[in-house]
């Protein structure tokens, strides 16, 4: 069972969605359990549609689960709140707010004094490298800059856990690599616990202490891959043998799962 020091514990999580078309329901998770240490960087990978986004939303308390338990610092998670920070896939910035006002949104919703929030925001704006852009509107920023605002907005409420849903998916390859390096730098400075969903296997390995591989739906944990590559990591480790072997390994599991799920769908189609 979990050690008492675990930051986040997921025990035997079950979730199904009522399906609209047919009777009955669609099972998404069938007993998922794992625990995360404080300041650990975890990535979630798995076949498309296996339930990664759903998993994060449950962890955040945005949607309810059917069975099982989620404990953050030993307390059951029931609703979203400032103890968890969610970084959405599309940056989801409020277009009528400046960079500054977007970043302090979380504090504002908590009723923190505006002057105080803005002072605090300066630090996070510097942290994500957006000094000088405080008064810009989202439409005046590049995609990468919008994602930095998205990140700063989640960080400023000082969450215990950062839940990130494919935050770099919409970025081009170069920007993505830069953002990965910046994220690691920030993680080093803030020592947050991070759960990071991605489709890119190399991204998962590069960032994480452990990579959790989900099976196809109904999702279970297929394997938890420990990444032993020492930190701090530079982008060059992506070409090391150790890194490539790990990537191969994770890739073969996912491919296996994708094939299995395709086979299953074909069988269901025949029936």
């Amino acid at each position: 069972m979990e050690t008492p020091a675990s930051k986040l514990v997921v025990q035997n999580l079950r979730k199904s969605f009522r399906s609209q078309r047919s009777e009955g329901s669609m099972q998404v998770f069938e007993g998922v359990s794992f625990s995360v240490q404080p300041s650990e960087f975890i990535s979630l990978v798995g076949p498309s549609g296996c339930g990664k986004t759903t998993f994060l939303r449950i962890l955040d308390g945005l949607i309810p689960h059917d069975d099982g338990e989620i404990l953050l610092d030993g307390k059951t998670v029931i609703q979203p709140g400032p103890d968890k920070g969610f970084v959405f896939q599309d940056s989801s910035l409020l277009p009528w707010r400046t960079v500054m006002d977007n970043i302090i949104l979380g504090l504002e919703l908590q009723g923190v004094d505006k002057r105080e929030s803005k002072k605090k925001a300066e630090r996070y704006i510097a942290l994500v490298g957006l000094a000088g852009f405080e008064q810009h509107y989202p439409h005046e920023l590049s995609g990468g800059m919008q994602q930095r605002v998205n990140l700063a907005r989640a960080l400023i409420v000082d969450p215990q856990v950062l839940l990130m849903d494919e935050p770099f998916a919409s970025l081009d390859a170069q920007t993505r690599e830069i953002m990965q390096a910046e994220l690691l730098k920030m993680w080093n400075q803030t020592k947050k616990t991070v759960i990071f969903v991605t489709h890119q296997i190399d991204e998962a390995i590069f960032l994480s202490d452990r990579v959790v591989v989900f099976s196809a739906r109904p999702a279970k944990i297929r394997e938890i891959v420990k990444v032993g590559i020492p930190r701090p990591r530079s982008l060059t480790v992506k070409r090391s043998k150790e890194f490539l072997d790990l990537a191969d390994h994770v890739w073969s599991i996912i491919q296996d799962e994708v094939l299995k799920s395709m086979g299953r769908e074909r069988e269901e189609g025949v029936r």
Partner: protein
Amino acid sequence: MKAAAEREPRFPAWLGSPRMIAACSVVVGIGLWQLGYEALARTRYFKAYAIHHFLSSPLQVVQAFGELYRSGELLRHSYFSFLEFAYGFLLAIAVGIPVGLLMATVKKINYYLDPWVSCLYATPLVALAPVIIVWFGLGILPNSLVVFLGAVFPILLNTYTGIKSVKQNLIEVVRAFGGSRLQLFFKVMIPDATPAIITGIRLAVGRAVISVVVAELFGAEAGLGFMVYFYSQRFLPGPVFVGIVVLVVFGIVSFLALEKVQGWLSPWYAHQLRRAAHGMEVEQP
């Protein structure tokens, strides 16, 4: 590069601007109207069919404008029409926005009101106006009621759809930060729906101007619609066109003013529109 810079353009750039072209188009149109009238006036049909009772030239319209203005008649009629417009239009905003908000956020209210809104919206105002005049008599207030009925639905329905189509991901952001329903409403729904609401108000301007005229055609003792009707019955086309032009100018000016308000309240929206219109080539400020 150098050759291009040295070459003197044949016309200054502002002559080719869209605004300038539009202005030229109007001037040319009016000029053709004047010339056409002059040409017609020299034919024998002009006298034979008493065309001056049906048509008038731009110059005659200007002349009629001067006379109506000096006699104070134009101002009096404009004043009445403007009051009807203002009362009806402001009431339409004051009712349309809150009711639209309520219908979009409280399901029960929507169920009750939706059939009424649909029916009234589908009812031709021209058919309703005489009934209202019969019920409430002549005067500014009954006419304002007609204007209200004409203007309220674009505002109400645009408010409703504006709130209904608030982006789901923005709602989720506020929820993820633990925001309350009230905060969600004021910090996401209202700002996100603002451009749609103002679009509704802009559409309502046109309908309100039409409603002013419709109401005055059926019963009034003053007003621009009344003036148009009065002089057309007496075969005096000059003042008729004066009334029409004043109404048109008023409609256009209000519409453009609201466009400014829209750009001022939600600059990000104007940007999105421009982006949609010109592809991605929007200069970064």
